[in-house]
């Protein structure tokens, strides 16, 4: 039995020394189990010791690895010591060990301090070294990841909630306006894809926050495009930015007119800020309405409204009683109203200076309304926009009837001619350059052709032809100069 004990201690030491070698580990365990079969009671202490020691191994693999070589040497010495003092039994194994070690010469045995440590650690609290975080089995160390995933989940939740809210608002708007639109337009709702122009009767969703509706088939206009530009409620980032800078949903109505439906004038009315911004941004407003926005108070509008107009007559014509009434009652909801026969959208910033030709214009009425509530709108608020849509319909009919008198017409025509001239002048230099480069290209191409011609005869002939052409050109120019001189005289 004592020999069994003898075997165990060195195997334990070996365990400590070589934790990596699994095979030997298994063997040691097997031995231990076989021995256990013999006498359970005697091995009770050993089992405890075994567990303690193995726990030590797990928690402190690195320090153990450093002294593998010295260990086997001591095993035999230890074994002999055990033999001598082992009669006491192992109830008091700890004290016995202490006695054992104190007998030994420090010089004789290397690394015996380590052994002391292991024995002491049985009595002292276990020195638990910090395990690298991923070997721990606690979720707490992954708190950053949990934070990230929570953030993602909240983003997804916000997306779903925002999308639904926008969709409900759009539907509410459409429900309240459906009757008005259907009584005024033959085609309500078209996405341009179906073969037959049949009313789809529903909004066209462009985005999670933009809904379109195209109405057509009415006197006085080509068509009306209504854009419900809601806030980006589906995007959490946007929601957060909106907390700092409140904005509101917008309804933008763009009515395109035929040429005969509208006389030539440019006019805009709206909030002061919007007018200042539009005057800088919009191509036509910046060209035709050169004066600063006038306060609307002169025409009976609230002070917060400003007017941009091509000429006074236009303002008088547009601002009749009914319009003034509409605008005054709903001044908080109106962002801008823009009537123009030269509408071409915002100014385009081109890299090569001015574009070479005038942008295309279309006779347009553009209305931008703010939905009340500054973002915290509910579907009920959509009903309050109904009178504004009525105003739109009224304006369409009105603009058809509005005609400038002779003076006004002349002024308007002069204005347009002036704008066109300015434009041509500005691009004159550019157009000249473009023509010049084109001419040079042609010459170069011809020269190359002549050079590439292998036959010398043909080469000479081509050269002569080119020379003759040059002469002709020079003569023509001279003739022109002479003509001009004669005219001047």
């Amino acid at each position, binding site marked *: 039995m004592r020999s069994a004990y003898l075997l165990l201690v060195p195997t334990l030491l070996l365990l400590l020394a070589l934790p990596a070698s699994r095979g030997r580990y298994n063997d040691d365990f097997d031995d231990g189990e076989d021995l256990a079969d013999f006498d359970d009671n005697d091995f009770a202490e050993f089992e405890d010791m075994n567990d303690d020691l193995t726990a030590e191994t797990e928690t402190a693999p690195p320090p153990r690895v450093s002294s593998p070589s010295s260990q086997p040497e001591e095993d035999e010495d230890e074994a002999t010591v055990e033999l001598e003092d082992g009669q006491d039994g192992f109830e008091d194994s700890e004290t016995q060990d202490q006695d054992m070690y104190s007998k030994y010469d420090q010089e004789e045995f290397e690394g015996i301090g380590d052994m002391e440590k292991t024995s002491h650690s049985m009595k002292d609290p276990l020195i638990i070294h910090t395990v690298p975080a991923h070997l721990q089995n606690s979720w707490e160390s992954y708190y*950053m990841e949990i934070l990230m995933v929570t953030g993602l989940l909240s983003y*997804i939740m916000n997306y779903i909630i925002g999308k639904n809210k926008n969709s409900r608002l759009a539907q509410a708007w459409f429900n309240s306006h459906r009757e008005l639109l259907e*009584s005024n337009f033959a085609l309500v709702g078209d996405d341009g894809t179906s073969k037959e122009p049949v009313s789809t009767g529903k909004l066209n969703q462009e985005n999670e926050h933009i809904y379109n509706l195209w109405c057509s088939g009415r006197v006085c206009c080509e068509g009306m495009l209504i854009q419900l530009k809601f806030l980006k409620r589906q*995007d959490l980032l946007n929601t957060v930015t909106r907390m700092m800078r409140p904005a509101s949903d917008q309804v933008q109505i763009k009515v395109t007119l035929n040429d005969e439906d509208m006389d030539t004038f440019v006019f805009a009315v709206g909030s002061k800020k919007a007018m200042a911004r539009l005057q800088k941004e919009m191509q036509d407003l910046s060209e035709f309405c050169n004066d600063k926005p006038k306060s609307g108070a002169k025409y009976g509008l609230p002070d917060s409204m400003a007017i941009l107009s091509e000429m006074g007559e236009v303002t008088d014509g547009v601002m009749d009683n009914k319009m003034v009434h509409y605008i005054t009652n709903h001044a908080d909801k109106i962002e801008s109203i823009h009537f123009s026969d030269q509408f071409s959208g915002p100014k385009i910033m081109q890299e090569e200076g001015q574009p070479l030709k005038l942008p295309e214009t279309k006779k347009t009425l553009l209305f931008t309304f703010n939905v009340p509530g500054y973002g915290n709108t509910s579907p009920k608020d959509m009903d309050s926009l109904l009178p504004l849509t009525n105003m739109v319909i009224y304006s369409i009919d009105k603009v058809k009837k509005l005609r400038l008198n002779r003076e006004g017409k002349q002024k308007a025509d002069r204005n347009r001619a002036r704008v066109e001239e300015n434009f041509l002048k500005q691009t004159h230099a550019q157009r000249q350059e473009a023509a010049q480069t084109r001419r040079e290209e042609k010459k170069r191409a011809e020269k190359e052709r002549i050079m590439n011609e292998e036959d010398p005869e043909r080469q000479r002939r081509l050269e002569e032809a080119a020379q003759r052409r040059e002469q002709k050109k020079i003569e023509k120019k001279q003739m022109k100069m002479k003509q001009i001189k004669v005219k001047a005289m």
Partner: protein
Amino acid sequence: MATNSFADPRRQNKILRYKPPSTETNPTLEDPTPDYMNLLGMIFSMCGLMLKLKWCAWIAVYCSFISFANSRSSEDTKQMMSSFMLSISAVVMSYLQNPQPMSPPW
């Protein structure tokens, strides 16, 4: 409040089909957010994969989510899905290579 209470203003013969406004003429009206976020997402996920930075990969996931939320319905879903998959693969690869939890930068 209808303008012509007598005559029906609708004209069937005047119907014009809807033409989606071309975005080439006015590029300023387009919202550039989904494109930027897509690009950012790809850059971050590549950074996360190559440099084995976990926070890059997580930011890439966020970017692709934001890009998806802001995207237009006319944009094809393939691009969206590809950026999504790329960012998720960046996160997974970063964790497979280095299972340690992410350490906060502070």
